[in-house]
């Protein structure tokens, strides 16, 4: 089972409130000047950005604490092996705000205004988060109600980022243009990869954030836990 698409920015349903959360406002409303800036920049980006997702569902299992898919053995951390123990399939996905976002953000950075640079970064983060939710919804439609875990990503909480290599080997051509560099970081920069276990006894409420001891983490504070 596989799916991929480039979607329009409006389909994401991204609102200024999502961007404010990415900027660290934690539910508070920014001053009117900042609100206007966010609105202006969102409108500017909307004309250019082409977010995309790709996902595929493959049979797999957990051996010891390692997730094994198509003979590729992930060195997943012990806690993740336990959470995914009963999975019989895995959904692998990659989502991205796309190259057009990178180009736009680079142009803003060149202008030398750190506030605009900060807002552009927050918009990019909010875009790829929303794209992730969009792809997850699409996956749930394809799964037709099958129980699944939450999302786990290489580079997150003791799952070494070098595992991206194996992940992208499995994705093959289904990568919507996302590549990794020698440091295993993705390009375009605002991209997220990850896997979701599928199995009757899996608990979708257990997230990497909910297991992480860092209470002051910006992701937790942005409401990801």
């Amino acid at each position, binding site marked *: 089972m596989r799916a991929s698409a480039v979607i329009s920015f409006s389909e994401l349903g991204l609102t200024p409130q999502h961007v404010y959360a990415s*900027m660290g406002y934690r539910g508070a409303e*920014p001053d009117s000047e*900042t609100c206007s800036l966010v609105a202006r920049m969102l409108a500017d980006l909307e004309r250019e950005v082409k977010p995309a997702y790709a996902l595929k569902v493959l049979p797999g299992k957990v051996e010891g604490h390692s997730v094994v898919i198509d003979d590729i053995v992930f060195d997943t951390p012990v806690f993740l092996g336990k959470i995914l123990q009963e999975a019989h399939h895995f959904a692998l996905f990659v989502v991205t705000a796309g190259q057009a976002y990178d180009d736009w953000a680079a142009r803003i950075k060149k202008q030398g*205004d*750190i506030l605009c*640079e900060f807002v552009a970064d927050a918009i990019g983060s909010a875009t790829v988060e929303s794209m992730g939710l969009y792809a997850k919804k699409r996956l749930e439609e394809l799964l037709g109600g099958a129980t699944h875990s939450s999302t786990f990503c290489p580079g997150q909480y003791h799952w070494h980022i070098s595992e991206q290599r194996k992940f992208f080997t499995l994705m093959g051509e289904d990568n919507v243009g996302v590549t990794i560099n020698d*440091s295993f970081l993705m390009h375009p920069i605002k991209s997220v990869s990850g896997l979701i276990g599928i199995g009757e006894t899996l608990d979708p409420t257990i997230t990497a954030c909910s297991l992480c001891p860092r209470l002051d983490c910006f992701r937790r504070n942005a409401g990801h836990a």
Partner: protein
Amino acid sequence: MTDLNLLYDAILNGKLEQSVEVTNQAVAEGIEPQEIINGYMIKAMEEIGLRFQNGEAFVPNLLMAARAMKGSLDILRPLMKGANSVSMGKVVIGTVKGDLHDIGKNLVASMLEGCGFEVINLGVDISSEKFIEAAKEHKADIICMSALLTTTMNYMKEVIDALEAAGVRKDVKVMIGGAPVTDAFAQQIGADGYSENANGAVALARKLVAE
């Protein structure tokens, strides 16, 4: 006579144009740059930093204040020479090798600059060799390292070890920051300090250069 409280308010509220305008008026009236900086500008930055720490201000407020502060400093710096130099110290800052995240690091750089430090921003994906080269070239007082990933933060120790190996560790303080980094980690790798936010980074940098 220029009311310098307007400059304080302009920086506190992040109003660049107003900040530049009042500074130009003060300079035209012959007010000493040091008096303007110490009496009003740094105090405004301290206040916005305090508000941020107390949850009464947010990152954009810090950035706008730092931007206004920098606008005024750009006017005052050329007027200051020798002992009256505005620089609180030189800082070389970068995100460590393997990590491309730079917004938090740029925020710290901006705050440091706004508070009177001379900042050499190396960018992202910076190797130990580049940190050492820049520290030597600019005679830096502090190296600031940033990492956003648990998997790249360990490179900070490699940089500190490389500073030791190059025989320059004693010449430069090292401070670190980034989402996965903690005070315990800073101590573990032999850094001189850790800050969890941009405002704390300024306070830490001041403390380190005073040591």
